[in-house]
């Protein structure tokens, strides 16, 4: 039932999404060849980001984390469950949310997460990443695929994402890493996403914010 509802929303929303967002995926490292479960780590610049990610991984059913406030009524809870959202308390991240993500990753599903923790508006620079995503991927034993979502300059501009190469967390920090090692991998992931951002600006130099506008922001 859940898959049917998800696919129904996905298929009926496809044409309006393509018209409105005109998504484009840049693949400097080629196609994503990861089979089975993996975690998508993306910067967060708009509330439409989960849809943009879905466009980048069209052949997969993508789960995403959503603040528990969105599940406030039965109707809302039904809808967001249908579109594969996992409720999470941003103020007091709970073990249930963690286990829900790890269970899906171990079951071969794809989960998208925004390690910045909130929508980053008004700045071209990404905020520091929290290391929760690294812990989830490491516990589930799945790779992380970094992607960069270009912030839209105007509402009518097409939405561009840059797909990175998978990062094997367990290979980097072992089965039982320390908190410091988790933070180091988190920093590494941040650097990889900055590289993807630079790749985007090399393709769209006009999108690079001028120094003046950066200072204003």
């Amino acid at each position, binding site marked *: 039932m859940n898959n049917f509802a998800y696919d129904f929303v996905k298929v009926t929303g496809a044409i309006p999404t393509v018209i409105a967002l005109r998504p484009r995926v840049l693949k400097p490292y080629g196609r994503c060849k990861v089979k089975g479960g993996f975690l998508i780590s993306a910067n967060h610049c708009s509330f439409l980001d989960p849809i943009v990610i879905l466009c980048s991984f069209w052949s997969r059913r993508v789960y995403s984390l959503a603040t528990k406030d969105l599940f406030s009524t039965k109707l809302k809870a039904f809808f967001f469950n249908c579109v594969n959202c996992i409720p999470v308390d941003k103020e007091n991240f709970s*073990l249930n949310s963690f286990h829900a993500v790890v269970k899906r990753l171990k079951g071969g599903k794809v989960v998208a997460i925004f390690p910045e923790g909130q929508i980053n508006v008004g700045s071209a620079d990404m905020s520091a990443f929290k290391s*929760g995503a690294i812990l989830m991927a490491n516990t589930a034993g799945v790779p992380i695929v970094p992607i960069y979502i270009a912030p839209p300059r105007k509402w009518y501009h097409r939405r561009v994402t840059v797909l990175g190469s998978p990062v094997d967390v367990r290979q980097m920090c072992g089965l039982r890493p320390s908190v410091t090692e988790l933070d180091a991998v988190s920093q590494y992931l941040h650097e990889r996403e900055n590289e993807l951002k630079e790749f985007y600006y090399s393709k769209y130099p006009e999108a690079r914010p001028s120094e003046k506008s950066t200072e204003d922001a």
Partner: protein
Amino acid sequence: MALSRNEIKEKLSDVMKMVLSDAQPDLSAIDESSRLVEDLGLNSVGVLYIVIAIEEFFGIEFEDVGFDDFKVIGDVVDYIEEHI
């Protein structure tokens, strides 16, 4: 498997060593009143990691707990003692 409070604290010390590794120089100074955030420098992910490691080490399953549920080491020991 019933463990005494001291045995729990010893096992918990192993968990802390794994999680904190080189981040904390003096684990022997940690006692039940040590605060997870202020004294051990843990963030929300660190606390979560400790909880997950405890689940593995002690073979128990935590009910839904969050970052705010454990303030000091004593809270963690109490929880394990109640649920083991």
